């Protein structure tokens, strides 16, 4: 690796990038425009709603009260499940992924705690599908509610009534859901199409052939392309975040996972673009194939709406799409600061990136036949 050669390529690519108005538009202005449009459209239609299932095995006034408290939380719909139903089946079903079970003896324990046994405890069981962002949100909400309830008990108040308005730990609106999605989408499209269009231009203009007669190696050339794509991805992400903050006051966590996920995503999708150019020689056909790959992926991976709001079989489809993992890991990191969830999904993305990128590199020709 020769840093001067890398820098020379990078400088050339950045120079032509900022002079090319259409690439500026698609990398920067288009995602921002999309974000503003969607933000405005969904601003007044209310926030994303989440469903929590509750199985009340106690069936007492106090347990009813707890169910009611959960139901009062903004954006939360409570669905009551019959005592006799199988809890696991509910969680596995398409519309339930989060079930709170209030055990038999809940009321008795609370009464005991408040009268003769201060050490009495009761365990609520929560069954959930950890594969989805929404469950972590629900979990944090339920935990906050229970905290309030517990506080009420310790405080020796005579009722466990809680003010529901103050319970939500992190209020988040559609725009905060959407921004990680639009970041993941922009990184994907700019990586796939960047790889295809640049490769086509360099080939057509004889630049690849020319480069192959100079001391630069294939790996140096690919690495400089990657660095270029990563820089573009960082710049567009920064712009989306800044505009999101200025226009919508979107409050999102910025942490180390954000750049890490973006790097994984860029490598994966540039690799995909390289593979497509290898398999589909004609540039226009390659662009069409990329559209066929990326466009449905945008809708199926939860860029615009949460995956859990889609029909069950489409949810299964989402889970094999790399963009889904980019979306989910970004949301875990940026909305919830849930590093474990972000990391778990980022690993899936990383595996995809490694496989596809290596295949893409191997498919890139340097020497002529």
């Amino acid at each position, binding site marked *: 690796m020769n840093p*001067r*050669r890398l*820098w*020379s*390529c990078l*400088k*050339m690519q950045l*120079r*032509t990038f900022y*002079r*090319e108005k259409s690439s500026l538009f698609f990398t920067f202005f288009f995602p921002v425009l999309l974000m503003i449009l969607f933000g405005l459209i969904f601003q007044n239609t209310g926030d994303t709603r989440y469903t929590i299932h509750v199985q009340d095995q106690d069936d007492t006034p106090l347990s009813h009260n707890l169910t009611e408290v959960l139901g009062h939380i903004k954006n939360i719909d409570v669905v009551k499940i019959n005592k006799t139903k199988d809890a696991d089946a509910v969680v596995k079903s398409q519309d339930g992924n989060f079930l709170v079970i209030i055990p038999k003896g809940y009321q008795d324990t609370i009464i005991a705690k408040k009268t003769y046994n201060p050490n009495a405890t009761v365990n609520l069981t929560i069954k959930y599908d950890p594969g989805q962002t929404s469950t972590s949100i629900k979990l944090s909400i339920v935990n906050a509610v229970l905290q309030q309830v517990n506080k009420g008990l310790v405080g020796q108040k005579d009722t466990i009534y809680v003010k529901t308005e103050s319970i939500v730990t992190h209020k988040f609106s559609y725009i905060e859901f959407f921004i990680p999605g639009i970041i993941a989408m922009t990184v994907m499209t700019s990586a796939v199409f960047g790889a295809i269009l640049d490769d086509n*231009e360099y080939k057509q*203009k*004889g*630049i690849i*052939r*020319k*480069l*192959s*007669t*100079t*001391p*630069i190696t294939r790996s140096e050339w690919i690495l400089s392309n990657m660095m270029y794509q990563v820089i573009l991805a960082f710049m567009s992400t920064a712009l989306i975040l800044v505009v999101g903050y200025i226009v919508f006051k979107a409050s999102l966590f910025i942490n180390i996972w954000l750049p890490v996920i973006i790097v994984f995503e860029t490598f994966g999708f540039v690799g995909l673009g390289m593979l497509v150019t290898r398999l589909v020689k004609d540039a226009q056909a390659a662009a069409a194939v990329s559209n066929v790959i990326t466009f449905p992926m945008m809708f199926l991976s939860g860029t615009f709406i949460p995956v859990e709001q889609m029909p069950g079989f489409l949810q299964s489809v989402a889970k094999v799409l790399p963009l889904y993992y980019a979306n989910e890991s970004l949301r875990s990191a940026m909305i919830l600061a849930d590093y474990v969830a972000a990391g778990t999904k980022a690993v899936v993305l990383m595996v995809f990136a490694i496989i596809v990128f290596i295949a893409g590199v191997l498919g890139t020709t340097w*020497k*002529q*036949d």
Partner: protein
Amino acid sequence: MSGKASKKSGKKPKKAAAEDPSPKDEGHNGYYIEVQDLVKVYGDIRAVDGISLKIKKGEVFAFLGPNGAGKTTTVEMIETIRTPTSGTIKLMGMDVSKRIQEIKKVIGVLPQEFSSLDLLRTRETLEFYAGLYDRQADLDKLLAAVGLKDHAKQYYKNLSGGLKRRLGIAVALVNDPEVIFLDEPTTGLDPQGRREVWKVIADLKKAGKTIFLTTHYMEEAEVLADHIAIIHKGKIIAEGTVDELIDRYGSGLMMTFSGVGKDFEGTVKGLGYTVEECKNAHVCLTVKGKDELVKALAEIDRSGAGFKEVNVRKANLEEVFLKLTGETLKEGEEP
């Protein structure tokens, strides 16, 4: 292999250079490019079919042939970017299949149909390519040398065809190379642009650079080259200097009579001359040299066969090629 080529190799035994087990940079014996029995096969097609070449340091070598004759395939094998099916290539004594990185540092290549990015300025294009080398030419001097000083800040897309090609040549020179490969440097240019490029190449020749030029323009080879090889269907069919080739394969002096009378052709034939096919109702005949020319003119004049003008010119490479292959070197002709 032509008679000439074997005569050449007689002067300098091929064996010594080709079989040197440990080639060094200095092991080139004055030959900067040595190609021995080079073959490139694609499927059933022998694109390059047993070519041998020797090009001296400081020489302008023209590789001449119609499109599809195997010129670019050959040149790309020498440039290390294509792998030969068999045969050996040495560049400045270095084996091209082994010392790829070292060779890439000392060659400068203008690929066929090369262009730069539309939104890169002239100087930036040079900076980009220069940045790929440790050894770099002075870019300002280079711009001046190819006549692009006043266009240094222009975007590539705004340059004329001739200027674009001159930039391509400048790009081939950013590392101050020892050997320069120019693949069809004037194809697609108008006569003005072609002449501009020729001047640049002539200047490089003056500066003592070794140049490997591929072209299908006979005129270009005649104007620029010290040494020519004609390739046809993957084989070298003739090799030598321009004069040597014309002397050997050309037909002497061509006399073209215009404004001739009705019985002119018959009269000339009656005098024992062979009349050749000719355009525009002209009558053409070929004579060996100056003496025969004077004699023929005198005889025709005495015979009373009337004509207005006679034009005399030396045979050119076009005719040599035609004679050797029975084909013309037309642009766009595919085998």
